[in-house]
Every structure is written in C-alpha cells, then in structure tokens.
C-alpha cells in the first residue's frame, strides 16, 4: 500500500517537473525572440532611414531627422530636460504615465464591474436582453471614442471624467462577452445542477461565472488597451495637462524642433498599453487555472 502511494506520488511529480523545465526554456526562448525582434526592428528602422536618405526617395514620405529621428536620439531624449531648467523628460513622462494610468485604471475597473453586473442581470431576463442587447451590440459598430470630447466637457469632473470615457469603452465589450460566457455552460451541467435543485445564485456562482471567465478575460484584454486609449484621447479636449495625452499635444507643437520628445512620449504610451494588457494576462493566469479556451 505504502509502496503504491509512493509510486503515485512519484508519478505525479515527474510530469510537473518536466512541465516547469519546459516552461523555463520556453520563457527563455520567448525572451530571446523578443530581444531579437526589437533589435531587428531597430536595424530595419535605421536601414530604411539610410536607404531613403541616401537615395533621396520621398515616397511615401521624405525621410530626415524630423520625420524619422535616429533610435538613439529618441532614447537619449529621455535623459534630457524637456524644457529649459525643467526636470528630465523621463521623469516628466513617467509622472504623466502614472496620471494617465490612474485615469485608465479607475475607468477600467468601473467599466468592467458595471459591465459584469449588467451581464449577470441580462442573463436572468430574456425581456431585458431583448430590450437592451441590440443597443449594446450596435454600440460596438459606432465610433464611440468620437463622443469623448463631449463627455469631458459635460461632466466637468477633471480626471474623473476622463475615467468615465475609459469606463465607457470598457463597459461594452465586457458586458457582451460576459453575457455570452454566462450562457456558454454545457446544458447537461445545467441539468445536473437542476437535479440538485440548486438555486439561481448557486447556478450563477458554481456554473455560469466559471464558464464565463475565459470570455470575460478575452474582453478584458481588449478593454485594457481601450481604456488606455480612452484616457489619452479623453485628455485632449479637456485641457488636462498632467497626462500622456497632454504631453502628446504639447510635444506635437514643438515636433519640428524636437521630434524625439514626441517619439519618446509615444514609446511610454505604448509601454503603458502593454503593461495594462500584461496585467490582465497575468490576472487571467492566476484566476483561470485550467486549459485555456480559445475565444474571440
């Protein structure tokens, strides 16, 4: 008996170890690929620059220090003062990224929670679905970001109104996908819980919500980026200057003099978007502990 137990333990251990080793080499490989790709992009950028500058080609656009600054010029800009006697650009940008990140995060959390709650409500009422679902679906086909300036001027709530835009962009995909996920559970599982005479809440908690998680997370991945975009765009018409949107507007005005500042700002904005996305990916890894389901 003891021996059998030992054997079982051993068997359990082996694949786990093999798996983790695979994962480590996989992570190393991936990091290598990313490094190589970034270097290749750098190389391509400089090569393109070189060819276009040397040949004087102007299609699709003329290449010079203004349109395509050297990559090292852009990175050097981080370590320079953004204006005379001011702080270093990197600290200005990091502060702006924190500000925009706060707006986006607050909006993201608001939009995701409201979207989830609405989906839970809709899944329990066919009437409500018929009444509201067409509008939620249709809203995905119209350029909602265009409404941003209106919302900001309306609410007069400073950075919070920017968060509302981020929330707005997060809400719709989360509501639709969660609803789809809540409805995705195997009908036989519903029957099984029916034989236990499980209450609505039990079915919701033990079946519908777990079934909806992969759908929810694929929406959250889309929304994470959308909330950052919403925050940046929301800052534009509102004369909120503390964030990345303000920084982009500001450096855009001086683009012909110091183009690298705008490029540097955009690199930080890109990093912020990717950090948001990775945050959701990591959260998904922690929450959904089973075989990944491909959705969306």
């Amino acid at each position: 008996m003891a021996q059998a137990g030992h054997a079982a333990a051993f068997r359990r251990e082996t694949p786990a170890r093999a798996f983790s080793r695979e994962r480590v080499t996989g992570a190393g490989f991936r990091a290598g690929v990313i490094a190589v790709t970034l270097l290749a992009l750098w190389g391509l950028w400089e090569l393109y620059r070189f060819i276009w500058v040397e040949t004087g080609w102007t299609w699709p656009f003329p290449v010079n220090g203004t349109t395509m600054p050297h990559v090292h010029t852009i990175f050097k800009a981080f370590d320079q003062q953004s204006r005379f006697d001011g702080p270093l650009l990197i600290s200005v940008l990091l502060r702006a990224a924190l500000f925009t990140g706060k707006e986006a995060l607050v909006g993201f959390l608001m939009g995701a929670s409201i979207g989830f709650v609405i989906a839970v409500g809709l899944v329990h009422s066919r009437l409500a679905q018929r009444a509201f679902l067409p509008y939620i679906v249709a809203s995905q086909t119209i350029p909602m970001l265009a409404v941003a300036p209106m919302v900001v001027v309306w609410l007069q709530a400073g950075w919070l109104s920017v968060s509302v835009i981020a929330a707005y962009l997060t809400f719709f995909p989360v509501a639709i996908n969660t609803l789809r996920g809540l409805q995705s559970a195997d009908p036989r599982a519903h029957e099984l819980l029916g034989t236990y005479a499980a209450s609505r809440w039990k079915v919701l908690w033990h079946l519908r919500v777990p079934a909806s998680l992969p759908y929810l997370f694929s929406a959250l991945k889309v929304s994470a980026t959308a909330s950052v975009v919403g925050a940046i765009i929301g800052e534009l018409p509102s004369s909120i200057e503390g964030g990345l949107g303000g920084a982009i507007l500001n450096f855009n005005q001086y683009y012909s003099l110091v183009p690298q500042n705008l490029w540097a700002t955009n690199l930080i904005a890109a990093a912020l978007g990717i950090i948001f996305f990775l945050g959701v990916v990591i959260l998904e890894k922690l929450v959904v502990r089973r075989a990944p389901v491909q959705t969306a």
Partner: protein
Amino acid sequence: MSPAARLRDWIPAIVVFCAGIAAWQLSIEIFNIQKFLLPKPWAIVHACWTQRHALWSAGWLTLKEALGGFAIGSSAGILFAVVLARFRRLGSALMPIAIAANAIPIIAFSPIFNAWFDPLSPAPRMATAAVLCFFPVMVNTLRGLTSVRPAQIEVMRSYATGEFEIFRRVRAPTALPFVFSALKVATVLAMIGAIVSDYFGTFGSLGITIKNSVALFDFETAWAAILVASILGVLMYISVSLAERFALQWDPTRQERGTA
C-alpha cells in the same frame, strides 16, 4: 420563425428606444438643462439638416479616409499573416509580439503621421486607420490559418497534394471566418482612426467638426457630426457583414461568433 413572432421579439427594444428619446427630451425641459450641454434629440436632427452641406463633405472625406485605411491596413494584415503562416515557426515566435503590439495605443501615433504626410491631404488619417486595422486583422488571420484540423490536412496528403493546394482548399477556407470577424472589428477601428486623429491636429474632416463645435459649445453640430460618423460606421460594418454572409453560407457557427 414567423414575421409576427420576429416583430414581437423586437418590441422591447423599440419601446426602450422610444422611451429613451422621450426621457431625453422631457428631462431637458423638466430639469431645464442648458441646451449647450445636452441638446434635444430633435435639435440634433435639425442640425443635421441645416448643416447638411458641411456634414456631407466632411462625412464623405472621412469615409474615404476610413475606407482607404481599412483597405490598406487589412490587406497588409492578411498578406503578412499568409507569409507568417507559411513559415510557421517564425509565425508562432512572432505571435506574442504582434499581440503585444496590438495593446499599443496606436492612435497616439497619429500626430507623427501628420508630420510624415501632408496634413492637408487625407494621407495621415488614412495611415492612422491603416495601422489600427493592421494588427487585429493580422493576428486573427494567422490564428485562422493555423487552426486547421490536422485530419483535414491528412485527407489532402492522402491525395498527394502540395502545400499550395492545402493552403487553397483547407487553410484559406478555415481562416475565412476569422478574417471576417477581424474585418468587422477593423471597420470600426478605421472610422475611429479617421476621426480621432483629427483631435491632435487642426486639419481634417468630421473629427475637426466635432472638436471645433465642442470648443464653441455648439453641441448640436457636434452631435450631428457624431450621428453622421455613426451612420457611416454602421454602413461599413453592415457591408462587411453582408459580404461575410455571402462568403460564409456554409458556416453554421457564423451567428454565434458574432461581433465581439
């Protein structure tokens, strides 16, 4: 389903629509909201009419920018995916990077396109729209091209056919639903790209109309412009959906896959 039953399904939605418009109109009158904050729905329709010439030309320009960007970005995305699917290892290695690139707020780069191209021409807006469309189309197409069932490949191999035939008869049809759902997303992104890149600049079309009207507290025109943009966006979306319906008649899961 009978037409009557179908109509009955839509009644709640229609009720909500009418109630929403009525509540909107009434709340303005009851709470005496200043018209520059929230115009009455009727006033927006009215503005559509009085501003029709300006809105028409701005809308037409926006549509051209969005369509151009959509065409360029989507075809580039499909082309890239086809090449990456041919070199599968390269494709799977680059996939995470493409997904990460998809998380970049690309719209923030539109001021740079204004510096690259003549800001008076549609080119910078078209470029923004194209880049916005590129990544989702590329990622989804690649996912479709690589999600073929191995047994279907075996059937083709049993006929001793080459990679090209396998691509044409198995990979491409398998990828088509994925491509279409990406294209539908791309229509919306193209419209957003064409409009929102205006917020960074001083030239443009519908986006500039919205931006300037908001600055002048002329919300009626701003909403009218948004209404036009929405109609154009929905039209683009519906066109792609119709093309999809035509191309994917065989696909029983088309309805379920939906739009998200």
